[in-house]
């Protein structure tokens, strides 16, 4: 009788342990995916700011436009973690104001380096949109997984804070929008 009870208890314990380790493994995989997505987002944002600075310094644009663009890009690049979402949104708005000027594309195309720069800008802007979606997806899934009672009770996620969503206005300029 007691042997049976012990045996059953042992099986339950083993099954529970397997389950817990599976959940922990899943959480671990989600964290890796989140970190990768975050690195990609960070790279995309830095790239966008760099292309904006390059465009501003290219002497293709008029000085006022260059200045506005350079200032916004600089703000975005140097913003601390708390101001970053604001600064990046501001850069998106500035970019829209700059690129959606009348005949902006034609003007740039007249310049030898213009077409290539525009293409680079186009790519950089799209990648911000893509990488932010992918990051927020990863953040959402990870948050849900961390909130499960098992993960909370056993602290499977360690002492990490739940990942934050990255909320910015990343609407591309109208004339760059491809989809």
């Amino acid at each position, binding site marked *: 009788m007691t042997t049976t009870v012990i045996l059953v208890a042992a099986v339950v314990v083993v099954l529970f342990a397997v389950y817990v380790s599976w959940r922990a493994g*899943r959480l671990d995989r989600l964290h890796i*995916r989140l970190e*990768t997505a975050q690195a990609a987002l960070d*790279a*995309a944002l830095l790239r966008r700011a760099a292309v904006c600075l390059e465009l501003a310094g290219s002497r293709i644009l008029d000085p006022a436009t260059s200045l506005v663009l350079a200032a916004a890009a600089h703000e975005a690049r140097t913003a601390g973690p708390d101001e970053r979402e604001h600064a990046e949104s501001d850069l998106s708005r500035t970019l829209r104001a700059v690129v959606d000027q009348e005949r902006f594309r034609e003007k740039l195309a007249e310049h030898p380096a213009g077409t290539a720069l525009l293409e680079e800008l186009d790519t950089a802007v799209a990648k911000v*949109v*893509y990488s932010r*979606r*992918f990051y927020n997806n990863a953040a959402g899934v990870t948050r849900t997984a961390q909130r499960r009672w098992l993960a909370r009770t056993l602290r499977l996620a360690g002492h990490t804070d739940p990942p934050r969503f990255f909320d910015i206005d990343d609407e591309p300029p109208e004339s760059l929008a491809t*989809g």
Partner: protein
Amino acid sequence: MNVGIVCPYTWEVPGGVQAHIRDLAEALIDDGHKVSVIAPAADDAELPAYVTSAGRAVPVPYNGSVARLAFGFLSANRVRKWIREGGFDVLHVHEPAVPSLGVLACWVARGPIVATFHASYARSRAMSVAAPMLQSALEKITGRIAVSDAARKTLVEHLGGDAVLIPNGVTVRRYAEGEPLPGWGPDGGVIGFLGRMDEPRKGLAVLLEAFALLAPERPGLRLLIAGPGDPDEVLDRVPKPYRDRVGLLGMVSEADKVRAYHSVDVFCAPNLGGESFGIVLTEAMSAGAPILASDIPAFRRVLGEGQAGALFTTGDPAALAREAARLLDDPGRRAKLSDEARQAVWKYDWSTVARDVLRVYETVTHASAGVVEDSLP
């Protein structure tokens, strides 16, 4: 970049997803990338050099219709081998929520995985049941693409999370030139339709009713209909005196389809909904056919809210008749719509679409070591 693409449906059977993958693969190859596609295929099917067969697909009832799907250990092993030997930088899975090769690929691979969602439906019992079971496979996907707003909405509702929108492409140059079919227009009076005649959602009934309204006043008006279905059933719905003014081509070859687009004065897309994108519309636009379409969201979007084609109230034959009459009486407006359509459709050319997809690849492969076989599960 070395790309592995997973197709869930039998390669040699014509279908939207297969055509999408073929065009994407060819656009990527043209751009200098290495592409390998794995798809279910019959043993004797002739496959392009870039396609690897995963074996035969089996017809099973799924999600309200019979689908040919590939599943089981044999398929899983073939996918596993393909991934191990492919050395891909990125894996691109199509329709990963369908129980076929896509979900198998997610299961056996680890690394940057991009998924494209094509289908859209209001509510699916199969999806609701499957979602939790698919969870661990779907969680491996790093970047999600939806081909339309409707597909994206379906994805958000059934699986949660979000996706980036990259619409289907069309190979514009394939449709740009074409000889009109003998005996047809454009002569100022031909309205064209292309699609399944017996599928209510395609809206042929609305067009036939509108035709019956217009025909008595316009002796030169004719209807050119191409697509599979029962011709007698269609003619039954046309008043007797006007039946000889309706041309039924049935199922047409790719070449005749192009010619059909060039044989009309107005191309009509009266769809009632459910269309996730409107590939027919972009083909007609590539051919420069003046377009009259129902104002479902997908069409409004493709036609730039009416810039590149006229719109009418969905499902309303009187509105269709009114708009068609206005277009037929105004050659200037038709010419303008045709020009606008040819311009607007470049946004949907495969070269543009492939470039966007490539950007997604680059985003997810940032600092990654590529796709490897997953030792689990």
